[in-house]
């Protein structure tokens, strides 16, 4: 049974009164004051919804039959060229590593998203957790009153908790930087407490004979957590009011830009996993215009995020991953579009102490060979990230169907891990 939840002030009054305040977890601002490797590590995923075209972003092949009108530009890494749609990122490619040969077997949006978010293919018997949920499950979140896994933007399939439970689902904020909705109680303090006391009585009545089923529903747990959240200072991380206008402008005044800025604030507060969705990459028609528009949004936001993380000494403890559910076909279809292509697509990874300047894998410039050189399964990428976050990817958990499953089936990619 849950006790009646108190708000922070009442907690403090009560605990100070009884002299046990030292038992409280260190609160709110602590995580924000730590820097460098001391901080709790986090993962920010920039999710390119709909399937970005590798050819119009990280892996252009200009002047070939598959290249289309997209041009390539030089980057900070000698010999590495990326699409001209990403000029600001070109200046920062020395801070990231690039994977050009990710492979998946899922060419459907929903299944592809499932696979790339979890590292497992959809399976009718068990629902796998998203990598963000795995991280929040494995790393301590005691310092947080706000959710440890947050999804920002218009993502159609935000990361789920899978067999870890819906409490590990990403907390969804569609309009980043706006007031998180429904956080203010509608009545005064005293009345709210009276309501909560009554709720406790009614809840107990329902539990008679249904305790196990009711616990599984997490109903009470969510109410307790909601109340903690409603009274937390950490909510400020969701707001953008105290960010200078210039900085907001640098990220771009788009939902994605604001999302990236909020992601930085969340990570600063100690949130473990954030996904920011940039939707609209599904360019079955009119590929080139669609992709450049999206890439432009990505370029300003991603580059500003990296700059900010460096400036605040947060990049060492924050992995930033830019990825979508699959890439797009080398072949340009008659509608000037590109279709789904799970064989050889790109991702960019930065921070968290991972090696930078690496370029792994390559795709066929003629578009004839389906398989890329050095195909990299998405699982290997996640095993690398987990390892870097000090989580053993091979750790097995017992799923609700009684089958043990590894957190991740891949093996870490040595090229990305820092030198031992």
């Amino acid at each position, binding site marked *: 049974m849950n006790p009646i939840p108190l708000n922070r002030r009442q907690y403090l009054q009560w605990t100070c009164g009884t002299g046990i305040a030292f038992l409280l977890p260190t609160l709110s601002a602590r995580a924000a004051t730590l820097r460098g490797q001391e901080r709790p590590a986090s993962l920010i995923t920039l999710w390119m919804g709909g399937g970005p075209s590798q050819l119009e972003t990280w892996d252009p092949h200009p002047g070939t039959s598959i290249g289309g009108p997209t041009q390539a530009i030089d980057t900070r890494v000698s010999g590495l060229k990326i699409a001209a749609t990403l000029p600001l990122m070109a200046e920062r490619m020395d801070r990231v590593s690039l994977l050009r040969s990710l492979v998946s077997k899922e060419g*459907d949006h929903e299944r592809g998203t499932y696979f790339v978010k979890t590292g497992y293919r959809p399976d009718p018997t068990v629902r796998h957790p998203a990598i963000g949920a795995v991280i929040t499950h494995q790393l301590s979140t005691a310092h947080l009153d706000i959710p440890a896994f947050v999804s920002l933007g218009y993502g159609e399939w935000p990361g789920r908790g899978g067999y870890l439970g819906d409490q590990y689902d990403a907390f*969804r904020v569609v309009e980043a930087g706006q007031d998180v*909705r429904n956080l203010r*109680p509608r009545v005064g303090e005293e*009345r709210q407490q009276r309501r909560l006391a*009554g709720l406790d009585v009614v809840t107990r009545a329902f539990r*008679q004979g249904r305790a*196990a089923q*009711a616990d599984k529903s997490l*109903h009470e747990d969510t109410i307790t957590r909601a109340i903690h959240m409603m009274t937390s200072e950490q909510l400020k991380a969701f707001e953008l009011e105290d960010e200078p206008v210039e900085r907001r402008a640098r990220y771009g005044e788009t939902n994605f830009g604001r999302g990236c800025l909020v992601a930085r604030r969340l990570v600063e507060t100690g949130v473990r996993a954030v996904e920011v969705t940039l939707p609209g990459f599904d360019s079955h028609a009119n590929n080139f215009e669609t992709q450049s528009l999206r890439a432009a949004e990505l370029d300003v936001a991603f580059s500003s995020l990296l700059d900010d993380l460096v400036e605040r000494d947060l990049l060492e403890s924050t992995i930033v991953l830019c990825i979508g559910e699959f890439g797009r076909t080398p072949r340009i279809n008659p509608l000037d579009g590109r279709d789904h292509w799970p064989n050889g697509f790109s991702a960019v990874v930065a921070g968290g102490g991972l090696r930078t300047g690496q370029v792994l894998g390559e795709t066929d410039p003629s578009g004839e060979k389906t398989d890329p050189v050095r195909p990299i399964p998405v699982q290997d990428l996640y095993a690398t990230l987990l390892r870097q976050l000090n989580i053993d990817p091979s750790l097995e958990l017992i799923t609700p169907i009684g089958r043990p499953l590894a957190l991740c089936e891949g093996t870490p990619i040595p090229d990305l891990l820092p030198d031992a």
Partner: protein
Amino acid sequence: MTGRQWHPVLKLSWLLVVVGLFWLVGRTAFPTLHNANRTVERNESAQAVLPVVQVVDKAMRELWEQEGLRPAAPAGELTILRRLSLALHGTVPSLEEIRQFEADTHPDRLPRWIEEMLRDSRFADYFAERLTRVFVGVQREPFLIFRRDLFKSWMSDQLRRNRPYDQMVWEMIAQPGLWTGEPATNFITHGVIDKEPNPAKLTGRTVRAVLGQRIDCAECHNHPFANWKQRDFQGLAAFYGQVKLSPFGVEDDPKRRFRVTDRNTLEEQVIEPAVPFGEDWLTTRETFRQSLADWCINSENRRFSRAAVNRVWGLLFGKAWSEGAPYQVSVDDLPDPEEETSATPLVLDILAEDFVAHGYDLRRLMRVILSTEAFRMDSRAEIEDDQELQRHLDHWAVFPLTRLRPEQVVGAMLQAASIKTIDQNAALITRTVRLLREADFVREYGDLGENELEERSGTVPQALLRMNGKLAAEATEPNPFNATPRLAIASGSPERLLENCYLVTLTRRPLDEERSYFLGLWQETATRPDSRRVQDLQWILFNSPEFSWNH
């Protein structure tokens, strides 16, 4: 000129408008609570389903015995009334309905109420939305929403007329015509990608929605685990190879064919229609789609009837039959039907056979499922061990707790905020407000999209929305448009007030401990106005687990 002088008739009409408005507001605020019994026709239908219900009950009983399970006690009739109302109308019963139900003293009141509820237009509307999700998904673009709405009202009309399910499906797959004039064609238009109907998308949907299986992954490769091969997928997709959009709407061009590009050779291949099983059911028809439709709905095609039964069971219980033993798979992932042997058939197959034998009558199917013992089990069971409880739930020996769909939560909130039943006869303003609020709330609560039947627990955002959201606040604050003042004024004694609040939200009376707690509290705070008490109590009840779970 005496232009400023109002003509007496004009004056009178203004007066009428004002009086009319007052009357409208007054009626919404203080509806008459007539207690008259609804006239329920004596129905044969309930009797007609008894034999198959008995077969199902017997099969369940045998299974429970075999598994050594202790089935729960039968649930109380008000609990069942709540389940029925949530399953068929998407809301909790109104206080008005509860009173009528309790005043009905016939021993067979439940079957008669099921009949009445199936005939209510709320059933057709609510179920139309469920089935629309299955067949065309949840599309959010304005233009597509318009098409989807047309499809949904077509579906609603089919349900109202109780059109045989096989005919409905046939029409969706095979019908040509304009999407405005022939709303069933919006099944095809929902599968349009880049202005062309996409055979692959339509095939995936057809197999999932119509046959309850998944073939989508065979689009790109032979599935390593399932039986579907890429060739199966392409053969089925080829049935949609003739379909195109023209100024005349959805058309079949006899010269068109489904073509695929070989991934390795990049060569284009023409694919001829072919079915992965049941070749005998194929017919030669004018269009490929008609042949496909015939094949799908062939009475020998057990996948078709099993899929329908499994889905309807799921919508009524909140949990698909396949999610329990022995399959434990989601609603559209049914395994191939087993060979019919002499052994006891699965409940799914008993129901499917009955469904086919009775002309794919959806209402009959619902009547059967709702009359089974399994539907009337209590959700309470004194079983400590988790796995043991799970076994009981898997075999339907204990009624499962399932999270209400967002539409049900909002429907229940709005219904609980009114005393009268919000149905076709409710004031227009009440219904409009309901529609507007429902859309917002559902979006925020987390629309479950197509996969409504996935098992899910509650989340923090939902708790926040229920506790602090606008809808819950408006539904409980004392104003002339909701039940709060009326409950407060009309209930008389505190005991009565408490009871009415419980009935209107939770469809039950308070337990002794609840009664003594709240009455005690009210006595201590005697100066507070009743409307405020009602508001607080409604808030409490809205946030209780009991309110947002089917139990």
